[in-house]
C-alpha cells in the first residue's frame, strides 16, 4: 500500500506540470485552456478534474500493458502452455467499483455545474440583454433593452452579466466564445436558447460559429469587445447618434441606392443585414479581414483596403455569402470604402 502512494506522489508533480502546460496552450483571447471569465473558468475547472482522472487511468493502463508486453513475451521455441485462468472475481469487482468511484468524483461537480450554468438572467434588470442572431455567415447583436443593433462585434461592459438569447435566421449555427463562455446552438423557430457569461477583463475576444452552416461556416467569426462601464455608456450613446451621410453627393447617392436598401447605418435600426454603424472602427471587415497594417498575417489590410476587397467581390472573401457583387465603378467603391472607413464611434 505504501508503495502505491509513493508512485502517486511521484505522479502528482507530473500531472501538475501537464496542467501548467495545458494552460499555456493557444492565444489568450481564443483558447479554452486560458479562460478569461468565470463561466469559462468553471468549465476549465471541470476539464482539469476530468483530465487528471483520465491521465491517472491512462497511466495505470499503459503501465500494466507495458509490463505485460515486456514480461510475458514468448521466447523462441517456448512450447509451454500457460495456466488457463478463468477469471478472478475479486479483481473483476475491483475494476468495476474503482471506475464507479471515479465517475462519482466527476459526476457530482458536473451536475452542479449543469444547473449553475443554466441560470436564467433574462429577467435580471442589471444584466445586459443581448439577442444574438446567426445568419449565413455573420452575427447580429440586438441589445433588446437599449434599443441598439450591431453586427460582428459584440461590445459589452466588464462589470455586468451578459444574458444571451440565441436565434437563427436560417440554418443551425452555434454561438461560441471559447475563452469566455462555451457555446450554445441557435435553433430555427420555437426553441430559444439562453446562456450567460461575464467578462471581467477588458479586451477583445474571438468568437466563432461551431455548427456546420454552409460553405463559409469556417469564416463565420466575430469579436467580443469588453470595455469598462464608462466607455460602454459612451458607446451606447454614440450608437444612438444618427450617422452622418457622406459629404460627396455622388457617394451619398450610391450609398442610398445600392447599400441602404439592405443595410442600416444608424445603430438604432435593426434589419436582416449587418448594421453598418461604426463599421470603420471595428477590428475586422466581414469578421475575418483584419484591419491592421501589421503584415504578420495573410488576411490583413487597412480598413479601407479590406472594405474595398469585400465590396468588390464578397463571394471571393466568403463563398456563399448573401451579399451580391454590386455593379459599381472603381471610383464608387473607393468613395464608399473611404466613407465607411470614416465611420468610427468615439467611446
Amino acid at each position, binding site marked *: 500500500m505504501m508503495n502505491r502512494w509513493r508512485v502517486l506522489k511521484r505522479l502528482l508533480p507530473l500531472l501538475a506540470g501537464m496542467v501548467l502546460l495545458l494552460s499555456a496552450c493557444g492565444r489568450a483571447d481564443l483558447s479554452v485552456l486560458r479562460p478569461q471569465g468565470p463561466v469559462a473558468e468553471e468549465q476549465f475547472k471541470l476539464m482539469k478534474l476530468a483530465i487528471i482522472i483520465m491521465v491517472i487511468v491512462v497511466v495505470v493502463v499503459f503501465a500494466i500493458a507495458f509490463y505485460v*508486453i515486456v514480461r*510475458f513475451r514468448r521466447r523462441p521455441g517456448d512450447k509451454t502452455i500457460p495456466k488457463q485462468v478463468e477469471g478472478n472475481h475479486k479483481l473483476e469487482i475491483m475494476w468495476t467499483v474503482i*471506475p464507479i468511484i471515479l465517475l462519482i468524483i466527476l459526476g457530482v461537480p458536473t451536475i452542479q455545474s449543469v444547473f449553475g450554468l443554466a441560470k436564467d438572467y433574462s429577467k435580471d434588470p442589471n444584466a445586459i440583454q443581448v439577442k444574438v442572431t446567426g445568419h449565413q455567415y455573420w452575427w447580429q447583436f440586438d441589445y433588446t433593452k437599449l434599443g441598439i443593433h450591431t453586427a460582428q462585434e459584440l461590445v459589452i461592459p466588464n462589470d455586468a452579466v451578459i444574458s444571451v438569447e440565441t436565434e437563427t435566421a436560417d440554418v443551425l449555427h452555434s454561438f461560441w466564445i471559447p475563452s469566455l463562455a462555451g457555446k450554445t446552438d441557435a435553433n430555427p423557430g420555437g426553441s430559444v436558447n439562453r446562456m450567460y457569461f461575464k467578462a471581467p477583463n477588458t479586451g477583445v475576444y474571438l468568437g466563432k460559429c461551431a455548427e456546420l452552416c454552409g460553405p463559409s461556416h469556417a469564416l463565420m467569426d466575430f469579436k467580443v469587445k469588453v470595455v469598462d462601464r464608462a466607455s460602454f455608456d459612451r458607446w451606447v450613446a454614440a450608437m444612438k447618434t444618427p450617422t452622418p451621410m457622406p459629404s460627396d453627393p455622388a457617394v451619398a447617392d450610391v450609398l442610398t441606392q445600392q447599400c441602404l436598401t439592405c443595410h442600416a447605418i444608424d445603430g438604432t435600426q435593426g434589419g436582416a443585414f449587418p448594421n453598418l454603424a461604426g463599421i470603420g472602427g471595428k477590428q475586422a471587415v466581414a469578421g475575418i479581414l483584419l484591419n491592421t497594417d501589421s503584415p504578420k498575417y495573410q488576411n490583413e489590410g487597412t480598413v479601407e483596403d479590406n472594405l474595398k476587397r469585400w465590396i468588390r467581390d464578397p463571394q471571393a472573401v466568403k463563398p456563399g455569402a448573401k451579399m451580391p457583387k454590386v455593379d459599381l465603378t472603381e471610383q464608387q467603391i473607393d468613395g464608399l470604402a473611404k466613407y465607411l472607413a470614416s465611420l468610427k464611434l468615439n467611446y
Partner: protein
Amino acid sequence: MDWLTTVDHKKIGILYLISGGFFFLVGGLEAIMIRIQLWQPENHFVSADTYNELLTMHGTTMIFLAAMPMIFALMNAIVPLQIGARDVAFPFVNAIGFWTFFAGGVLLNVSWFTGGAPDAGWTSYVPLATDAFNGGNVHGVDYYVVGLQIAGIGTLVGGINFLATIINMRAPGMSFMRLPLFTWTAFITSALILFAFPALTVGLVALMFDRLFHANFFEVSNGGNAVLWEHIFWIFGHPEVYILILPAFGVISEVVSTFSRKRLFGYSSMVFATVLIGFLAFMVWAHHMFTTGLGPVANSLFSIATMLIAVPTGIKIFNWLFTLWGGSIRFTTANLFAVGFIPTFVMGGVTGVMLASAPADYQYHDTYFVVAHFHYVIVGGLILGLFSGLHYWWPKMFGRMLNETLGKLTFWFFFLGFHLTFFVQHFLGLMGMPRRVWTYLDGLGFDDLNMISTVGAFLMGLGTIFFLINIVTSAAKPRDAADDPWEDGRTLEWTIPSPAPEYNFAQTPLVRGYDAYWKEKMEGKNAMTPAEPLGPIHMPSPSILPLILSIGLFIGGLGFMYHHTIVGIIGLLITFGCLFTRSLIDDHGFHIEPDELHDKGVKA
C-alpha cells in the same frame, strides 16, 4: 458469374471485404484531401463547397460503406464457422443484404459525377440538409437520403440474419455461454442494428419526403421541428458507434487470447459487459446534443448515463490485459494490432468520459477535440480491430498467409501515423478550432499542429499501401495455409481446412466446452468429435435475383430523385418482380453427397 449469384456466406464475406475495402480507400482519399486542404492556413487546394462535400462523403463513406461492410465481411466469413454452422440462416437474404448495400454505396458515390456530392455533413442536420439550402448543388443531399436508405436495407436484413443464425444454428453443445466472444459481439451488434437502423430509416424517409415532395417534418415555418432530426439521427447514431466498436471488441478478445495461449480472462463478465454496453448505447443519444438547449435536467441525466458506459468498457480493457498477463505472448501482426488497440482505445474512451461532462462539452462540442475523440474510437478502435481481425482470419478466408514483414510495416506506419494525426487534434480543439472548417485564418496558432496532423495522415496512407501490397503479393502465392495456421487456435473455425470448404463442416461438431477446439487439443485429440454421421449435405442454390433486385432499387432511387416517376416505378417493379419470382419458384437447393466431400475450400 459465380460471384454474382453466390449465396455462400464465405464468398459474400469476401464480396463485403472487397467492396468495403474499396470504399475505405475512397474515404481515405477524401480524408487525405481534407488534410491537404488544412495543412496550412487559408489554403485554396479545394473550394469551400468541395470541402463540405469531401467532409460529408468522408464521414458517410467511412461509417456506412467502409466500416460496416468490413465488419459484415468478418461476421459473414467467421461467425457461421465459429458456431459450427454450415451457412447463415437465410443465405438468399444474405446475398440481398450485400447487393443492396453495394447498390446504395455506388449510388451515393455517383453523386460526385452528377453535379455535386451531399454537403450537409454526415449527420445531415436540417435545415442545412433541406432543399431550401441547396445552393448550386441541387441533388447532393438526395443522394444521401436515397443511397443510405438502400444501403440500410442491406444492413438491416444482414443484422436480422445474424440474429437468426446465432440463435438457431449453433452446433450441438454450443450454449450461449460457450459462444466465442466474436460471435457474442456479432450477436449484440446485430441486435443493435435491428433497433437502431429503423430509426435512421424513419428519419431518412421523412427527410426524403421533405426534399422530394415538400413535406414539412423539419420545416419550422410550416410547423415542423428542426431539433427532431437531431433526436432521430442520434437515436440511431449513438448505437451506431457501438454497432461499429463491439465487433472490434470481439476480434481483440479472440486475437489476444489466441496469441497469449490463454483463455479469455473473465469470459462471463466480458459477455455481461457487452450486453450492458449494447443496452446503454440506446440511453445516451442526447449527449450529442448538450448545446442544443434541452435543459439542465436532460443534460445531467444524459451526462451520467454516458459516463456509466465507462464501467463495462473498463471491465473489458482490464480483462484483456489480464488475458495477456501470465500468457505466452506471440507478436504476430494480428496481435500487434490487438495490443496496439488496447491503449489507443483507452485514450479514446477517457476523452469520451470527458465529453460526457455537459458543461465542459459546451466547450468541446463541435471542435477538433471531438474529431480527435471519435477518430480515436473509430480508427484507433474499430480500424485497428479490423486490421487485427483481417490479418488473423486471412488464412481462413483465403487459404494464404499474409507476409509478416509487410504486416509489421503496415502496423507501425498506420499506428504511428494515426497517433500523429489525431493526438494533436485534441489540442487544436481546445485552442479554439471548430470542426468542419474548410480553412482557418493565419495567426490563430493552429498552423503547426495542423501541419503535424497532415503528415500523420500521409503516414497512415502509407501503412494502408503496405497492406495492399501485402494482399497483392500474397495472392500470387499458393493456397497452402494450414487448418490451424497460428497453431494456438481455440475455436471451431480452426478445425476445418483453410479456406473453409463450401459446406464448412462435413459433420457438425459436438461442442463440449468453452473454446471447443482448445478443449479437444488439451485432451490430446486433434479433431472435434462429430455430432452426426457422415451424410448428404443440403445446400442452397445460387441465384442472380439479389443482384437484379438491388439494381432495381438503384434505378428506382435515381428515378425518384430526378422526378422521373416512370423510371422510379420501373425500378421498383424490377425489385418487386424479383421478390415475386423468388416466392413463385420452388427451389429445394441441392445436396453434396458424402463421396464428394474430400476436396477444396471456397474458391477465393
